[in-house]
């Protein structure tokens, strides 16, 4: 009973926050790029094993220890379909290589999540040549524990995925997959139980509430609400665990990646905003609290040469980690 009331209260707070943030954004924050940048960029943080170079780092996520970092990179290039390299790599807080996994199982790395038991979940956006197009659960030492979707066989029906962009695991083990990545793929969220049973599917291609156009990144807050980076629609949509629409946020830009830490701070990487696609917004990482939905920090891309990260996470100490795809890099940002 008490829990129920708390949840209801939580929902009301988020709804109110969404409203106030929207208003605040419209009235008091004409420039969506004006939040301060209190971070200093650190290069060459991660050290790969000898002979291995980093490819497109499409996903980064802090381990459950709160300090190690998992990276999902495209096998030293921008494609794993013909590679035997392990695309999921774990680094310790000093950037030292710890382990890697997933060799030969993935075509095109895309999303990554770490659950409370330390298992690593990834999504492979592309089904081709009898593999890929799946979500895979790995034990921390790389054993395949579960596969969702059919390797090599994209689809819309129950049990199939098409263009799975990202994945998030709830506290109770429920699995959320953002299933879609643009033209010809799906545009939906699929929810599975811990043991791999399909619980719910929602969303279709479109611009309305509960519709998607490239659901590129997803994350869960401490109350179990789902934040979907609905990239081509330049918004985050917030849902309850049953898929009921709660709010949409545009103040965090055009989201490629969404991460929410244990304190409900939200980190959003924007790699696509420009005058055509999301007028007024600059690319970079926007940070705020989900409690009020306000952007309190903005890490802009310092130069075209350095580029702009497509994936973002943060450790328990608040250090921000970013993965770069076109520039194939990993950097971190430490508070000054």
């Amino acid at each position: 009973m008490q829990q129920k009331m708390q949840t209801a209260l939580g929902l009301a707070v988020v709804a109110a926050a969404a409203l106030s943030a929207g208003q605040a954004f419209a009235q008091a924050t004409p420039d969506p790029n004006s939040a301060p940048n209190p971070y200093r960029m650190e290069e060459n943080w991660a050290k790969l094993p000898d002979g291995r170079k980093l490819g497109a780092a499409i996903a980064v996520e802090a381990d459950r220890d709160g300090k190690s970092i998992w990276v999902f990179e495209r096998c030293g290039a921008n494609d794993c379909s013909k590679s035997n390299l392990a695309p999921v790599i774990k680094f310790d807080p000093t950037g030292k290589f710890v382990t890697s996994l997933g060799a030969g199982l993935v075509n095109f790395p895309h999303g990554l999540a770490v659950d409370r038991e330390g298992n690593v979940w990834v999504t492979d956006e592309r089904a081709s040549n009898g593999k890929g197009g799946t979500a895979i659960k790995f034990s921390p030492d790389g054993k395949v524990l579960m596969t969702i979707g059919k390797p090599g066989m994209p689809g819309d029906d129950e049990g199939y995925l098409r263009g799975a962009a990202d994945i998030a695991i709830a506290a109770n083990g429920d699995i959320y997959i953002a299933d879609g990545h643009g033209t010809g793929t799906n545009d939906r969220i699929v929810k599975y139980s811990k043991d791999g049973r399909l619980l719910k599917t929602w969303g279709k291609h479109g611009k309305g509430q509960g519709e998607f156009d490239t659901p590129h990144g997803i994350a869960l807050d401490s109350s179990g609400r789902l934040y979907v980076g609905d990239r081509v629609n330049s918004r985050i949509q917030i849902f309850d665990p049953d898929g009921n629409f709660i709010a949409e946020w545009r103040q965090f830009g055009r989201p490629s990646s969404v991460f929410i830490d244990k304190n409900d701070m939200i980190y959003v990487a924007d790699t696509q905003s420009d005058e055509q696609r999301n007028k007024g917004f600059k690319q970079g990482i926007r940070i705020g609290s989900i409690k009020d939905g306000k952007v309190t920090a903005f890490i802009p891309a310092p130069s075209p040469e350095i580029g702009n990260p497509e994936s973002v996470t943060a450790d328990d100490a608040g250090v921000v980690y970013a993965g770069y795809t076109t520039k194939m890099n990993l950097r971190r940002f430490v508070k000054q």
Partner: protein
Amino acid sequence: MQFRQRADLALVIIVLLGAAASSAEPIAPTNSLPNPYRAIENWAKMPEGRIWGAVSAVDIDPDGQSVWVLERCGAQGFVPPSQMKEGEPFNCDGTKLAPILKFDAAGRLMKGFGEELLVFPHGLHVDRDGNVWVTDGVNRATKGQQVIKFSPDGKVLLRLGKAGVAGAGKDEFNAPSAVVTAPNGDIFVADGHGRDTNARIVKFAKDGTFIKTWGKKGSARGELDIPHTIAMDSQGRLFVGDRNNNRIQIFDQDGVFLDEWFQFSRPSGVFIDKNDIIYVADSESESVATNHDGWKRGIRIGSATTGVMSAFIPDPVEKIKGTSAAEGVAADAAGNIYGAEVGPKRVMKYVRN
């Protein structure tokens, strides 16, 4: 009573019309009907990296619009297994590909299954409950010569025939070409594909219990020479595409001969929709067939009640040695037609102009 009289009258009319439309003697080719359809190629899309092999059969989901396709796992030609090296893939055998594919009306792949279960997928039937029935016409090692019933999500629910064994017993097939089910669940298998294989219809109960069989190789009424396809109309009559006899034979569900029709040409595929419109695919006249010159390949459309034809979609290819045009055919609830092509390795869609 009144109804019964009317029904009797209707039967008389049907019999008369049927007699008028058909003839025991071969008739003049029916090539000159209007074609109110245009063709859409490359309608269905395979996953990246997968190429189309021979497509022998197509059927429509109970939703009236999704399309089920039977595809031979990328097979580009037919070399008999006896002439192949051991371990070399033969059609689906030796591959990990799914031969049973479901597409939505726009040609998006919805799902696929049946991996590593079939050798030479041939006939496809989707029943009223959405279960998918497939015949497997060639045996290799411990697979093939079976009819398999799959649930809509690909679980094997029933197997008929002995896996890997060709035969003529009650629980055996030899090159089963096609399967259809009745509203009460009875199963009818068109068992045989020419040469030394069988030439019969085998009837089973819903649970797979053998009921009866009829037909033997020959050209008389009730005899068969390549029973390549089988369909059922709304009255429950069975339409058997008796391919090498260049005719359709119509039977009741006890195997009693009712009629034979020549006007629909050499049938590789027969499909009957809910309104008893019949679609017949000829993929062999003036190509593989040597006994049907003057007839054009293509899809003939007409009434399964009267046998009167209304349209013909001709194969744009004139003369060719191999199979060409649709071998399997189906039409969705909106009347769009799908042709499964073995030679050209594709599924064509035909929509009204």
